[in-house]
């Protein structure tokens, strides 16, 4: 046991409520002692369940252990507690990169980079992601809505996946085969718009695309779309009144479902509805993927 770990362990034993568990967990992780690191952080989380740094650290430990699903959930929780957390954005960016969801990866990595302008590893990965996107565009792999979705590019393409840095926060997960977070239940692994529970509507509340089933299994998409008429306008008025800039998303947690709304264009809205057991941040990630697809679909004139 290193001196640092011994000292930190003693400190934590003397004051179990201390936040030193974060330092100890990180030291254990960096020493490759992942099991004790996880125990320390999980114990800390029982005292501080709303501490974003603790969830971020636990996510990195899980990623090191190859539990990418678990890491996804913890970074997801981190963003629920702190939507600007750079470590969580970086971690999710790497996960999406490995899952070959380049648009989502770039969005998270760029968000992280705005908070960590001196992170050279991050800058390098963003460059790789952009290069991969250029390759993808050149190969015309972008699927159209009315065509069968193209298979995702294999993860082992000519551009290598980012390798973990030795000590950086939110380092890249180890090179474990990815159970892609973009393929979680309720999210389509290929074309994100081919998914029950996604609805694209126009400003007048008319369905443009998508389907939605009610409790009895009947199609309720047109009713839901009609109820959304005017929501974008009201959201815009509210943020203008408050001088908050442009509205970006609307999330509603209801007892039976999670609703997430984004606006692909000023005249349209995209609604994602998911089971309330799915964290809102994950619903938002799915909606973000569908947002890009919806924009492409609208640009192509359906």
């Amino acid at each position, binding site marked *: 046991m290193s001196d640092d770990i011994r000292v930190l362990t003693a400190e934590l034993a003397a004051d179990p409520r201390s936040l030193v568990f974060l330092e100890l967990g990180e030291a254990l992780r960096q020493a490759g002692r992942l099991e004790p690191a996880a125990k320390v952080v999980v114990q800390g989380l029982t005292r501080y369940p*709303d501490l*974003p740094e603790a969830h971020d650290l636990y996510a990195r430990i899980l990623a090191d252990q190859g539990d990418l699903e678990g890491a996804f959930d913890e970074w997801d929780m981190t963003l*629920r*507690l*702190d*939507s*600007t957390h750079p470590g969580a954005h970086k971690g999710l960016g790497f996960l999406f990169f490995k899952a070959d969801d380049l648009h989502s990866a770039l969005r998270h990595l760029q968000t992280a980079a705005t908070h960590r302008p001196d992170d050279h590893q991050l800058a390098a990965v963003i460059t790789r992601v952009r290069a991969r996107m250029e390759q993808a565009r050149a190969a015309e792999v972008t699927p159209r809505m009315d065509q069968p979705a193209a298979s995702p590019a294999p993860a082992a393409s000519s551009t290598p996946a980012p390798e973990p840095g030795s000590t950086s926060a939110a380092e890249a997960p180890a090179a474990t085969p990815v159970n892609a977070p973009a393929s979680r239940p309720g999210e389509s692994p290929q074309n994100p718009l081919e998914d029950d529970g996604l609805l694209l509507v126009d400003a007048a509340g008319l369905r443009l695309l998508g389907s*939605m089933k*009610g*409790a*009895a299994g009947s199609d*309720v998409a047109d*009713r*839901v779309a*009609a*109820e*959304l008429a*005017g*929501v974008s306008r*009201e*959201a815009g*008025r*509210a*943020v203008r*009144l*408050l*001088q*908050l*800039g*442009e*509205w*970006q*998303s*609307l*999330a*509603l*947690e*209801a*007892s*039976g*479902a999670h*609703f997430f709304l984004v606006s692909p264009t000023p005249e349209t809205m995209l*609604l994602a*509805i998911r089971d*309330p057991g799915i964290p*809102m941040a994950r619903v938002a990630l799915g909606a973000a993927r569908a947002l890009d697809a919806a924009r492409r679909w609208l640009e192509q004139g359906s």
Partner: protein
Amino acid sequence: MSNHQKALESLTAIHGVRGAMIATGDDGIVVAEAVMEDVDGAALAALASSLTRRLEGAAAAASGGRPGFLHLQATGGALLVCPAGHGLLLVVIAERGVNVGRARLEMARVAETIT
């Protein structure tokens, strides 16, 4: 100081929260407010109420159950709305860097105390 004002102060004490108010859910009338002077509280209450009712309609049409926490995210901040008892709404205006998780937890706690 009324109980409502005390409740709102616990919300405005959160770093990044610019203001908070209690409004009626049906017609968007201000019950109590602690918002900055440059914010039209009456207009905000009306808009928050209207937005909430529209989304309630969508939730009902989708058999989504009883609406809870609502989070409108904008480039410069966020509007958070939480139902309280007696048909009231708790409304919070926040800056972009606010810890939404903490604000949400505090709103849920305050909502239970509003009578």
